[in-house]
Each structure stands twice: as C-alpha cells, then as structure tokens.
C-alpha cells in the first residue's frame, strides 16, 4: 500500500462545533487508486472530516495536502479545482431537468451565447460509457430510479474532472441490487485511476470493497488498517469502543394469548386502490412476528390502519378482544398499541422541541403530566431524565432539541417513550433504518426484551436480515395480502425473496436476487 502515491493527506485536523469537538486532530491519508473506507457511528465525525476536504467547512487547526502540495480549501469550487468531487447522501439534482442538463449545470460548454447541448450530450455519453455507468443523457431526473440519480451525481463529479471521489453513505438509499451495481462501478472507477473515500457504517460493504479502513470514534481516529487483515467483529469493536455481538441471543418464545387479531382487513391506499386486500394475521403475546416484503406492498398502510391514521374500509382489528378498526389514534394508543414509526422525523418526533417535550408526545394530557390544564414540567422532567438514563439516550440535556441528536439517539428516545407506555402490542416499523451497529444492537436487544416480558411485537422491515434474526415467525406480504408464513429457523433469504416477489405465482417476475 505504501508504494502508491498519496493523493490526499489531512494532518491534525480539528473542527469544533458549539458543544462538541467534531474532529480532534485527525490524520487521514488517501493513496492513489484505493478505496478508503471511513467507518464510524453516526456523529463520529466522518462526514465532518470529508466536508472539510470538500471545502464546506473550515477546520480550526490542521493542514491539508493534495498531491503533496499544501492547500487551503475555502469552498467547494476550490475542491473541484483540485480534482475532488463529492457524491452527497442527499442528491442535489434539479428534477425537471434532464441528466445532461444536471451534469453540466454551472460549467456548460458554450457555443457563442448558447449552451452547446450536442457537445454536452456527447461528453456525458462518453464518460458514462468509460466508467460503465449506463446513464441515458436525455432522460429527465424525475423519470429515473434513485440508483440512476446517484450515478448522475457520480457523473457530475467526473465531468468536472474529479480524480478523488468522496461517497457519503452512498448505499443508504439503494436496494440490494443497486448496491451491488454501485460497488461494481466503484471498482471500475479505481481501476481507471480514481481514488475513492467511502463514508459508511456498514461493515459488509467495507469488507466487500474497501482496501483500507480508517475508524473514527467521537471525533478521533482510532485506527487505520488494511481491510485484508481484519474482520467485521474487530471493526465493529473499534467503531463502538466495546465488544459488540453481531449475533443475537434469543431464548425460545413462550407464546401467550392472542394480543392482536387482524381479520380480512381492507384499506385504501393513496391512489384510492386497495393497498390491503383482506389481510389477516394473529399476533400472540410473547412473540415477534416479522412482516417481510418489498417496500410498497401495503406495509405503510398496514401500520397506518393499525394506529388509526388511515381509515379502514372493511375487516376488523382486535386488540385483546377489543375492536379498534377505525378508532382514533388516541383510543388505539390507550388500548395498548405503541408504534416505533417508519419515518422518525415525520411521525416520531417534533424536531424543534426539546427532548423532554418529545418524551410526553402521547401522554402529555394524562394526570401524570397535567394538572388542571397546565403542563407539570417537574413530572415531565423527571420522566424524561429517567427515560434518557434507562435507554442510554446520549443528549447534552433533556432541554436539547431533538433535532440536535444523532439518528440513533433520536430512535432510542422514541423507543424509550413507546416502550415506557407499557403497551400490549409494540409495532416496530423499520426500527433500525439508517442506524449504526451499536444502535442496532441496542434496539434489537430491547425488542427481544419486550417479547420476553410477554409483549407482542410486530416487526415490519424491508431488511431481510433483520427479519430473519429477530422474528419468531415470519409472514410475507405481497400486494396487500399475507401470501405465506414461514418459520425463520427453516427458511433462508433465498426462499423469502422468492415469496416476497411472489415468484411462484408469476413466473419470470422481477429479480429474485434478494440476498443482501
């Protein structure tokens, strides 16, 4: 490794934000032609470091060398000039524009006063072909998939002559198949002389593609080592700072009474078509029932119907023998259903509120927190302090706005609130989406703990691995129907993948490649 030329070197970079040191004299070295993974939990400071390299932040201390020349990168334009490109996690594209228009935006080839589209299309096509990106330069951004949009972002950097590409959590938004295609593209890029920094917290990707990995924890570099000589457990340990079990210890389920009975439930979706078609299942106390399925097969509508957010056309939902179909969210909540919502920013939290006010979002009106119409902040504070401690929510204080917390800690706060309601049924929708290993481990343990306490847990997730690992029973949903039920011990992702795409019924359906 040492023989390769160093293209980027960052020395003793320190960056402070109010209240935290995001980077604490960090050293980072990128060699030519390598894929260098930057691994760390959410909020560890890896994105900050790369934003400094891309000129979005200015470091308080430290030096940056590009191609062995000391440089000051005072803005993205400077970074681009130095051959650094960044593919952001959230794409920065103009949707009604075509692929080409997006790529050339800001550095258009000119023909007199007009934009030379002909030349632009040709150039985009050439780059696309050279790096195997397979992008149609004439397509509108609106019309292409998320995976394709990402490739447009990659092309944007290449068009501007980037030799050093920074990928910020590139796989967070992709399907398993798109991920493997992206990894292929990255291999292609380095084989043609580019150097890549991959910001990620997914160990699997690092093992699959990276040459070197630098682990960051709480703003400090813990280690930097070649991937070849390491393993996922070792990396996870370095990242989290303690031993992490990637496998889950789980006792056998002790089944109790049915807690949630869903019978021939019909619910209309956003387009007015039936999103749930006579869905039926029973969830018992003491078990985790996993609902597996490809996104968009009625999972969101099921969650909304179960929590009272979406009207029920017909059928019944019973919780401990009480009919709750069509009841209000509050009635349902009081009847004993808790939800860890799919989208924690949309449904789970009020981001501008302090943690303490978020902790009573569903219980603020109860006598415990409310005295004759006035909020009892003494009680609310005590409650919040207790939950923050019990669930290890890392926050400077309970007065901190939820927005300032990392994703994992936001999720912990939601889980603390929902579990503390002591529900009979806990619905966990995508409970670990976008979280890092440490937080995932914590959340999985809590879900199993709830099940061991005799609660009924309904797990809805698009991640097969999670479903297989946690569930005592798996029901597969396809086009709003439960099309099969399997025992996780007797199945594998291959079989589940086929069921999820309903391969048995529609021969030659979409990809059966559900392996993650």
């Amino acid at each position, binding site marked *: 490794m040492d023989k390769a030329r160093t293209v980027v070197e960052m020395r003793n970079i320190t960056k402070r934000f109010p209240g935290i040191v995001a980077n604490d004299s960090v050293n980072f070295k990128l060699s030519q032609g390598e894929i260098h993974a930057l691994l760390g939990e959410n909020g560890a400071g890896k994105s900050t470091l790369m934003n400094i390299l891309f000129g979005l932040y200015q470091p308080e201390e430290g030096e940056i060398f590009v191609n062995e020349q000391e440089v000051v990168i005072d803005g993205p334009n400077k970074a681009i000039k130095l051959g650094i490109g960044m593919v952001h996690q959230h794409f920065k594209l103009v949707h009604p524009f075509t692929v080409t228009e997006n790529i050339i935006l800001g550095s258009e080839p000119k023909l007199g006063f007009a934009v030379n589209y002909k030349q632009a299309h040709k150039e985009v096509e050439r780059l696309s072909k050279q790096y195997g990106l397979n992008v149609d330069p004439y397509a509108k951004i609106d019309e292409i998939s998320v995976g394709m949009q990402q490739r447009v972002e990659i092309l944007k950097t290449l068009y501007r002559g980037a030799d050093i590409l920074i990928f910020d959590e590139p796989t967070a938004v992709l399907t398993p198949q798109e991920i493997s295609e992206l990894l292929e593209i990255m291999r292609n890029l380095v084989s043609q002389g580019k150097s890549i920094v991959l910001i990620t917290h997914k160990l699997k990707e690092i093992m699959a593609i990276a040459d070197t990995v630098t682990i960051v924890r709480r703003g400090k570099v813990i280690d930097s080592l070649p991937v070849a000589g390491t393993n996922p457990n070792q990396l996870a340990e370095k990242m989290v700072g303690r031993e992490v079990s990637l496998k889950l210890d789980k006792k056998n389920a002790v089944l109790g009474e049915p807690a949630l009975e869903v019978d021939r439930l019909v619910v209309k979706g956003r387009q007015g078509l039936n999103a749930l078609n006579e869905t039926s299942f029973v969830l018992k106390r003491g078990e985790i029932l996993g609902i597996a399925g490809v996104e968009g097969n009625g999972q969101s509508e099921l969650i909304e119907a179960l929590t009272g957010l979406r009207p029920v056309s017909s059928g019944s939902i019973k919780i401990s023998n009480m009919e709750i179909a069509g009841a209000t*969210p*509050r009635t349902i909540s009081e009847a004993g259903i808790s*939800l860890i919502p799919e989208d924690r920013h949309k449904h789970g*939290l009020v981001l501008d509120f302090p943690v303490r006010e978020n902790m009573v*979002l569903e219980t*603020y009106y109860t006598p415990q927190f409310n005295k004759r*119409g*006035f*909020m009892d902040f003494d009680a609310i504070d005590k409650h919040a302090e207790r939950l923050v401690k019990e669930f290890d929510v890392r926050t400077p204080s309970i007065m901190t706005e939820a927005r300032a917390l990392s994703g994992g800690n936001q999720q912990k706060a939601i889980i603390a609130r929902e579990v503390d309601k002591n529900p009979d049924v806990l619905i966990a929708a995508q409970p670990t989406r976008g979280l890092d290993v440490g937080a995932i481990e914590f959340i999985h343990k809590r879900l199993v703990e709830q099940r061991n306490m005799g609660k009924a847990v309904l797990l809805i997730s698009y991640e097969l691995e999670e479903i297989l690992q946690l569930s005592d029973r798996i029901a597969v949903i396809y086009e709003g129907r439960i099309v099969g039920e399997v025992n996780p011990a007797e199945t594998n992702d291959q079989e589940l993948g086929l069921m999820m795409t309903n391969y048995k019924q529609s021969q030659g359906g979409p990809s059966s490649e559900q392996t993650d």
Partner: protein
Amino acid sequence: MNKLIKAITGGSAIVPIVAIILGLLVGAIIMLIGGYDPILAYRSLINKVFGNPYDFGETLTAITPLIFTGLSVAFAFRTGLFNIGAEGQYIMGMTGATIIGVSVHLPWYIHAPLAVIVGALFGGFWGMIAGYLKAARGVNEVITTIMLNWIALHLANYIVNDYLLEPGKGRSYMIDESASVTIGWLSRLLEDARMHWGMLIALLAVVFFYVFLWRTKQGYELRVVGHNPDAAKYAGINVNRGVVKAMFISGVLAGLAGVFQVLGVFLNQAVSASHTGHGFDGIAVALLGGNNPVGVLLGAILFGSLSYGAAGMSFGADVPPEIIRIVIGTVIFFVAAPGIIRWIIKRRLPGKKSKGEVI
C-alpha cells in the same frame, strides 16, 4: 423567569439589534443625500418621544395596538400559520366594540367589559373563518386572511354607515361614557394624553402568550400541530381543531387592538377609505421580535416610538416623516435577511476567532 430572559437574549437578540442600528444608519444616509441633518433629526425624534409628558403618553398609546397585532401574528406563527389577516381582525374588533359601545346602555362595570369581550370575539370569529376554511377545505390561510381584510374593511364601513352613523359626520356616534376604558387620572397626569387600560391588558397578553403556549396542555398541542402536523395526528391531537383554535386566539389578540383603539383612544369608529396598517405592522413587529412574546413587546415599543417620533423629526429637522418608514423598512429587511448581518458581524470581528481558539 431566568430561562425566559435567556431565551430572548440568547444569541438571537444580536440580529435585531444590529438590524436596528443598520436601519438607522441607512435612514441617516438618505437624510444626508437629501440635504438634511440626521443627528438633529434623530435628536428631534427622541425629543418627541420623551420630551414632554403628553408625547410620552401618546407614544404609549401608539405602541399598544402594535403589541396586540404583533402577538396575534406571532401566535399564529408559533402554531404553523401565517396570519396576514390581523388587519381585518383588528377592524372587526373595532366594529364589535363600537356596536356595543354605541347601541347598548348599561352601567360601566358591565358595559365596558362587554364591549371588550364582544369586540375580541368579533376579531376571534374573523380569524376563525380562515382557520375553518383551512381545516375543512384546505384553503391556504394566507389567501383567505388577505381577502378577509378587505371584506372586514367594507363590512365595517357598511355597519358604521348604515346603523351607527352620527348624521353629518364621517364616523359613528361617540360611545357611551360607561363603555370607555380611558384612565382619567393618568391622562390628567400626562397633560391629557389619551391613556387607557388597554396598555395594561396588552402587557397581560404578553404574559398570557407565554404561559398559554409553553405552560398549558392546549398550548403544547398547538405547538405540536404547528411544528409537525403528522406527529400531532399520531399523538392523537386533532390537527384541524387546533388550526381553528389557533386562528381564533390569534384573531382575539388582533381584535383587542381594535377594541382599545375605539374604547380608549378615538371613542368612535370612523368610516375609513383604507386599512390602518396596524395589522400589517404586526407582521413586522412579530418578525422583529422573533415571534417571542417579550421580543414582540420590544418590537412594538420600537415601532410605536419611531412612528410617533417621526412627527417630531419633521417639526424639528424639517425631515419628511416618510423617512422613518424607510428606517422601519430597512430594519425589517435586515431582520428578514439575517445572513447579511452574520456576514457583517463576521467581517467586523476577525480578531475574535483566535480568541475562540484559546478557549
């Protein structure tokens, strides 16, 4: 209370203060261009506001409606609504108070409170219309409140013209003595400035604003609705009812501004050709005050003083009073564009950075 002060002064106060200074500077530059003496002008302005008891009292009178309309707009803001209709609600408040003040005859301890309550309800009802249309029909409140401003203006004129008009005058009959909320002894103390109880109520409204939004269950609900309607729905809060309620309260606050103008200042309601501007100034006051109750109070004091003091400027320095509208406009501009101010502060304080590093 400590927390409250901290919330106001904590960081965010620097932008309005710099904005005010810049606004005054821009005003001064324009005066210089026009060949006036800005120092003399501003001195006359201050002199007008604080110079004698009468003017000081009248300044307070000018500030009062701005506190109410500022709170009205800020309250709606806090609950996720943009109430452009404080003007219309203000007019309806006036109208309600005038109707009771002129056409009913009761002992003072019933008459005045009744006039205040009815006027406030008129304003609240006017706000509620926009809230209802948003909740039930999804109509954007910005559009409805703007239209309701015009409807209010002409409805009020119609009511005054056809039912309350004193023959030969362009205004309603004077309200009964028993409905008036003036403070005689204070007026006499301040050389007959028009002092009234509305000033005290305005201060109470500032306290109400804070306590209601941040201390009560209903305030919590409204804030959740304002910040995240989806989370509110899941938490079992009725979002539509919240919108209607918020617009009602916002309307009541604006309505009270009109109520006290009638019952405490003019003692009648004029047929007016155009809007008074108090409602629109409320938007600026709310913006300047960061939608914070005490901030609104300070913003209203500034705006009220500048507007009233403008007359002194033209008297003392021969400066046209419109200059002060330029100052106000510039202040709003800089408050609305905090980026400019942060940029200026950053450029002005290059030495501070190294100091920060030591810490």
